[in-house]
């Protein structure tokens, strides 16, 4: 190379060329290091150095990106910075433009968590098909959470308001810290051992900033999975779903919502009962109507005065039965008079044919068309008609027989 061919650059020119190379070669890098020399001038851009034991690199995080940081950036922080390399013309120094910053180690945790989630999913722990249905009306409900947080108060007050006729078994545990996962596991296993808990609410404490790692613990996930009662998780924040939420049979966004899912509203249940009783009453009344129309047809077809007397007697007995039913209804629905209004009236004409259906028959003197009420009369008459619920039969009375009823009495 001769001097004649030597190319002489202007400073700006060489910087521009180097910048092109840098930007072309390193459009996206992730660099781990310690933050030092942190400065935030009024522009809002964040300037710092990333360093390790022997080297350092200048870095900038522009205001728009800095605003998205979800942790406190400070000198000494170990971070992973993601962005691109460029050259700062004015100083001829190269720098990292950090677009994203995260605390070092967080990535490892997230990776580990992703692996755990993938593994448990593979094993079927999150399978929707194995989610257990919640009981409609739990008798005994266990609450596994911190005894001091807001969660336990929210859950208790919600249950007291909605469905106080339930027993709550409090199982206090630490929800954060090293002991938390083991305590939660022991609590869930103890509940399984009891065997008399219908549903479990597993909640965090309810503080604003909480470490949720206990609810991302594999042991806790497995304890939820093998728990003898369905588990409602009230752990995750809106944005932060935990492994416990995935495994739980039902996930609730807050402890209050968990309680609302666990127990029905008392007023709604009462309304449901009233509705059922109303339907039962209406259906019975309809049934009575049908029977009554059939009786009408029946009595007309046997236009026999004395028989009518027998039927009236049977009707009286049925009246008594229907009165009993109406009174039962009246007892239970004392405050709902309007609802049973008319029911009693409609019940009063119960079907005598049903008396016949139960095994009775009316015996009529064939010659005189008179209902017979004594065996001796029947023997004397000889030719009789027997009225069954579905028609009449001609019969000859052969003579006296041993009576059945007293025989029954005697055998008792």
């Amino acid at each position: 190379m001769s001097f004649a061919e030597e190319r002489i650059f202007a400073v700006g020119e060489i910087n521009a060329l180097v910048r092109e190379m840098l930007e072309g070669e390193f459009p996206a890098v992730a660099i781990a290091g310690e933050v030092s020399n942190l400065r935030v001038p009024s522009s809002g851009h964040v300037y710092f150095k990333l360093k390790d034991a022997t080297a350092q690199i200048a870095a900038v995080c522009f205001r728009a990106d800095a605003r998205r940081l979800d942790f406190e950036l400070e000198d000494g922080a170990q971070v992973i910075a993601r962005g691109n390399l460029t050259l700062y013309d004015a100083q001829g120094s190269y720098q990292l433009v950090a677009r994203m910053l995260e605390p070092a180690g967080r990535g490892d945790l997230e990776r580990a968590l992703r692996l755990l989630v993938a593994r448990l999913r593979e094993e079927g722990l999150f399978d929707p098909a194995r989610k257990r249905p919640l009981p409609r009306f739990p008798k005994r409900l266990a609450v596994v959470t911190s005894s001091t947080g807001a969660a336990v108060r929210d859950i208790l007050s919600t249950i007291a308001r909605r469905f106080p006729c339930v027993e709550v078994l409090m199982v206090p545990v630490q929800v954060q810290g090293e002991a938390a996962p083991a305590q939660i596991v022991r609590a869930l296993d103890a509940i399984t051992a009891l065997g008399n808990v219908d549903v479990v609410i597993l909640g965090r404490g309810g503080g604003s900033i909480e470490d949720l790692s206990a609810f991302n613990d594999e042991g806790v996930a497995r304890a939820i999975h093998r728990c003898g009662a369905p588990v409602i998780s009230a752990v995750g924040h809106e944005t932060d779903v935990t492994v416990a939420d995935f495994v739980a049979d039902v996930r609730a966004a807050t402890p209050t919502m968990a309680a609302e899912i666990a127990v029905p509203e008392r007023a709604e249940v009462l309304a449901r009962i009233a509705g059922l009783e109303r339907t039962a009453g209406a259906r019975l009344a309809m049934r009575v109507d049908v029977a009554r129309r059939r009786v009408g047809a029946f009595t007309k077809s046997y236009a026999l005065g004395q028989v009518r007397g027998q039927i009236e007697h049977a009707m009286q007995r049925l009246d008594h039965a229907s009165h009993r039913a109406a009174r039962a209804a009246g007892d239970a629905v004392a405050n709902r008079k309007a609802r049973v209004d008319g029911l009693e009236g409609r019940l009063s004409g119960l079907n005598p044919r049903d008396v016949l259906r139960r095994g009775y028959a009316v015996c009529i003197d064939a010659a005189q068309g008179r209902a017979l009420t004594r065996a001796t009369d029947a023997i004397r008459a000889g030719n009789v008609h027997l009225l069954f619920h579905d028609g009449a039969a001609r019969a000859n009375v052969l003579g006296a027989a041993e009576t059945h009823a007293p025989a029954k009495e005697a055998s008792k």
Partner: protein
Amino acid sequence: MTDQALTFEAAMARLEEIVADLESGKLSLEESLQKFEEGIALGKTCREFLDRADVRIRTLTVSQNGDATEEDATDDE
């Protein structure tokens, strides 16, 4: 049947079953009456259960080795 012998859930389920039977229209009048009376009695049982006013609270303490002790805690809420 007393409510000790029958859980609330079972009583509700039976009541619903009875009403479904009545709605089927397949019962004789006698059966309808019996079911109706049973239904009314169940409704009464359920209401009595729901009238219970206070949440019963108990505490389960679980030791390091997994031993669990249950005790009444209704008063120290």
